[in-house]
């Protein structure tokens, strides 16, 4: 009936909407991507179900029966109307290399990526940062400050994540809209100041093998 509320009552875009832009919110499992998107979005986060077929893991090839594995991934996203005609979409993007085809599809046309990092498990973010660097997409890193997480000096984090000195490194609370906006402002400011085409090739550097002697950071002044 006409009066019955739709089971999928849509929140439509304004009729003057012209330009849709997107930013990826990337990071490992549980780092706060959905929380970040929810804090910023004008609607509850939506999601699409994506089916991925991939080559089997080694276990399967040992058994020799299956050669494909199908995985379903939920991709969540949200949107925020910035002006009458300009709308920003945020796409939560899983950081695993096995989702790379999905990653490539979602990242097409993105302005850039915000990588969320949890200092309790920094290593979990290496894979997603590598993926983004391989794609050539500009990015900023936001440390999502979980209450019990260790606090590192920015230069120590930079060194450990091997960030380019120009890559913004900020802290944020993904639950707080203002803090999330600030992280995006850092990203977009970076996009304006350091356009990707102007960026020179990364200089090969020695792998930091030693454990994390504090106070011996080598990444310049480390930004802030």
């Amino acid at each position, binding site marked *: 009936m006409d009066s019955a509320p739709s089971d*999928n009552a*849509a929140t*439509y*875009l*304004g*009729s003057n*909407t012209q*330009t*849709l*832009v*997107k930013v990826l919110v990337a990071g490992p499992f549980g780092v706060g991507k959905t929380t970040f998107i929810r804090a910023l979005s004008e609607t509850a986060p*939506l*999601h*699409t179900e*994506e089916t991925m077929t991939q080559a089997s893991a080694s276990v399967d090839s040992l058994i020799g029966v299956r050669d494909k594995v199908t995985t379903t991934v939920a991709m969540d*996203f949200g*949107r*925020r109307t*910035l*002006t009458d005609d*300009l709308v*920003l*979409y945020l*796409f939560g993007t899983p950081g695993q290399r096995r989702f790379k085809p999905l990653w*490539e*599809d*979602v*990242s*097409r*046309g993105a*302005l850039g990526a915000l990588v969320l990092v949890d200092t309790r498990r*920094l*290593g979990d973010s*290496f*894979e997603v*940062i*590598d993926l983004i660097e*391989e*794609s*050539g*997409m500009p990015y900023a890193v936001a440390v999502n400050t979980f209450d019990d997480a260790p606090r590192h000096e920015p230069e120590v984090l930079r*060194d*450990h*994540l*091997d960030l380019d000195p120009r890559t913004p490194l900020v802290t944020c609370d993904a639950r707080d809209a203002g803090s999330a*906006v*600030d992280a*995006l*402002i850092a990203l*977009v*400011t970076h*996009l*304006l100041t350091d*356009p*990707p085409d102007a960026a020179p090739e990364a200089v090969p*550097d020695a*792998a*930091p*093998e030693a454990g*994390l002697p504090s106070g011996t950071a080598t990444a310049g002044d480390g930004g802030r």
Partner: protein
Amino acid sequence: MSGRRSERRLVPAYMATGGRAAPSRNTFDRLTLLSAAGGPLPGRLAPAQRRLAELVNGGPLSLAEAAAYLVLPVSVVRVLVADLVDLGVLHARAPVPRAEQHDPRLLERVLSGLRAIR
């Protein structure tokens, strides 16, 4: 704990050529802006086509949002959009072209929009 580069493995970049060589139905991006063309719906639409047409009749949406509301995979909705554009039921407007993705004027607009909602 060792640094990131020690785990690093390089594969070729895809972004340099990524957007252009896509097959035609892939030209409908998640951010393709869908709006109703306005006329009456043709009588003979498949159920999924009709659901999409009726959804967009309510107002403009991105393709990704249409997929989420219809609980359909993005790949399926891309095909439905292509069908409905061919039938003259939907308008589909491409998102920002790749060349304008890094346009400082666009980025300035995004930045001032973000500052305004801060």
